[in-house]
């Protein structure tokens, strides 16, 4: 395994193209780049923002574990995983996962795995802020996310 792994947990936004360029710049062996961006949805207009709490230290470590696991399962040249915290408005990006590989099948599988793993293992919690109402309820974990993560253990 020789994948370059870049993990960050930050308040600021990110530039997916710039992050991808870090992996591909000057390389002639990367044929496939898959980039996943998770965005804040407005839930039909009722959501003013998502507030994302995280466990500093463990969050970075857990995402790093996910990236290492992905790089051990597929022949990857690079992985970028960035997760934001704090107040995030609808339309803004929350999470970025990029995988670079020689071939597309591996890059797609690894990016999908990384997101499934992040969703269920990385210590982040979302709470809704409703339009005109301030802090609202905490988002509940979705059973489908756990089912998605479970399929990689089969």
């Amino acid at each position, binding site marked *: 395994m020789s994948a370059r792994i870049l993990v960050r947990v930050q308040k600021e936004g990110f530039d997916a193209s710039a992050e991808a360029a870090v992996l591909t710049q000057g390389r002639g062996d990367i044929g496939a780049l898959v980039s996943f961006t998770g965005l804040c949805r407005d839930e039909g207009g009722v959501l003013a923002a998502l507030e994302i709490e995280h466990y500093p230290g*463990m969050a970075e470590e857990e995402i790093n574990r996910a990236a290492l696991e992905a790089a051990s399962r597929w022949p990857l040249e690079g992985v970028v995983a960035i997760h934001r915290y704090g107040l995030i408005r609808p339309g803004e990006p929350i999470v970025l996962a990029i995988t670079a590989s020689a071939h597309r099948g591996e890059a797609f599988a690894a990016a999908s795995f990384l997101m499934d793993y992040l969703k269920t293992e990385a210590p982040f919690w979302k709470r809704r802020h409703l339009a005109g109402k301030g802090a609202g309820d905490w988002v509940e974990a979705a059973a489908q996310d756990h089912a998605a993560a479970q399929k990689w253990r089969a």
Partner: protein
Amino acid sequence: MKALYFSWVRERIGKAEEEIVPPENIKTVAELMAWLSGQGENYAAAFANIKTMRAALDHTHVRHDALIQNAWEIAFFPPMTGG
């Protein structure tokens, strides 16, 4: 040891972190949760539904039957909703 609380666990207990000194007979995460829930109404409310509670020892997810041993930090939180 240091105890950290996140999301609604933090809200119900009313603090984000604290130093705890559990009795020596507390060996597992489950025993620690039972002991904590006896420390006041706020703790009882936080640990009311033990099944949904997640725990991490020194930044690593653990099951409720995990031994605490020499961990320097334990965290309690609901299922994660990141990504």
